[in-house]
């Protein structure tokens, strides 16, 4: 069982208090939102994917625990400017590694919420197919 000091590292707290690109992206071409039904954590990801297939810009929003929100911030920072194919190849394991501290299976779900939403956002053009849940 990871201890409190192990999970809530400086790096995690930094992202929680000073997140990367938390907010809205009015120019988004793709977006998705989902929640963890067990705890109610919500993450929304908005992407602007350009003609060359790059994540030109990305923002996240939502509410929830330190882990789900800090993980989403780390993920936005990591995929910003990256080709979509690279983002698609990002596995759950990579997300857990990116987050850093070892997590129990229950808290892994918190960590992976943003990653799950991002992977679906890539296939969710704004104003088509998947309805905007907001």
């Amino acid at each position, binding site marked *: 069982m990871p201890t409190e000091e192990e999970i809530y590292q400086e790096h995690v707290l930094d992202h929680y208090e000073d997140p*990367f690109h938390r907010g809205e992206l009015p120019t988004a071409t793709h977006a998705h939102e989902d929640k963890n039904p067990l705890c109610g954590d919500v993450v929304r990801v908005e992407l602007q994917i350009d003609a060359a297939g790059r994540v030109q810009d990305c923002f996240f929003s939502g509410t929830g625990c330190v882990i789900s929100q800090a993980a989403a911030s780390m993920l936005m920072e990591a995929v910003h400017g990256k080709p979509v194919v690279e983002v698609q190849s990002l596995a759950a394991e990579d997300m857990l590694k990116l987050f850093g501290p070892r997590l129990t299976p229950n808290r892994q779900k918190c960590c992976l919420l943003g990653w799950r939403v991002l992977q679906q956002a890539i296939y969710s053009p704004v104003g088509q197919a998947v309805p905007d849940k907001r």
Partner: protein
Amino acid sequence: MPAITSNPVVPSPLTGDLLPAALRDDFPILSQHVHGERRLVFLDNAASSQRPRSVIDAMDRLYERDYANVHRGIHVLSERSTDLYEEARRKIQRFIGARSEREIIFTSGTTSSINLVARSWGDANLKAGDEILVTVMEHHSNLVPWFQLAERTGAVVKQVPITDDGQLVLESLDSLLTERTKLVAFTAVSNTLGTINPVAEFTRRAHAVGAVVLVDGAQSVPHVATNVAALGVDFLAFSGHKMCGPSGIGVLYGREELLEAMPPFMGGGGMINRVYADRFTAGELPAKFEAGTPPIAEAIGLGAAVDYLTTVGLDRIHRHELELVGYAMERLAKIDGIRMLGPGPEQRAGLVSFVFPHPHAHDVAQLLDSRGVAVRAGHHCTQPLHDRLGITASTRASFYLYNRPDEVDALVEALGRIARTFRPSGRKRKKTDDIA
């Protein structure tokens, strides 16, 4: 292995109405340490309580000496088990002041008791346009069965609102209770707010318009002396595992006339009078509602739990919890940024839920756990209530007869640390290593 007590033990200013500390020795599970050297501080009793040695022994003894199926076998073990099972039923009858043991139905828990009423009484008595009145503070188990009943029958579910400090707005009953109201279902004690609702008054008002009253007693029966005859309720549902008994057992009390008139809900062995090639006739109460092999050991364990609670005394338990929750609220109020949900200590049972602006309830629970303090975090199966309060989750500390003031101190000390750690401090993010 000897372990040091790392949670603080501060002399308590409380003396008056507390139960003796030696009572903790009756509960083997409480004497352990967790996460290495942390003394276990168990404050998740509203979710499920712990059980005394006498309950564990009663079930062990049954399995070691007396166990067989009940009401069936013509042999000595079946007779012993049947006697013990029916004796447990009589203990519960006396414990809640029911007139007859025919009014005590064993179920698997509060949820199953409520669903039994919804399926049996509800389907037989409700029609389109009828109204079911609940409150906004109900547990999902006292909402979803009524939503399902409304879907099946076309009945309408209405809600009694609450004040900002978590008390029912009884004036709203003037307009909410009408001749269309066929059922009023509400909790005696809120599992999230701790509010003690005025059961007798609410019941009297509901009966005045001819409605049937079901009370969710999951959070009240374990903590406050309950007398169904004095309260006048028609149905009372509660669970064994929240009152020092085993999981998998619960009770539905129903007024005999109502239960007599209700059709059986689950069909199977044990609930019949006679089965023919193409039909059946139902058995007598209470067997009519106990199809299949019941939770035998669990019912007997619940009987032992009732013995234990009766010996300690429900009034003393309630006073003990009032002392603890009053002390907890007084100390919690001093933590920066905390918001406590629900009314003042005088209107509540022994639990307190709260929220911080930072961090989220799940982080609070995880951080408390790492200090050995077990609490509940989340929506506590009361999402409509959380919506009403404008929050998504809260943290709940809930007390029982074995909790002590120094455990409140351990909770408050740990929460103070958490509040300090997560207070916005102007920290800045450093660039994350490139992973893709």
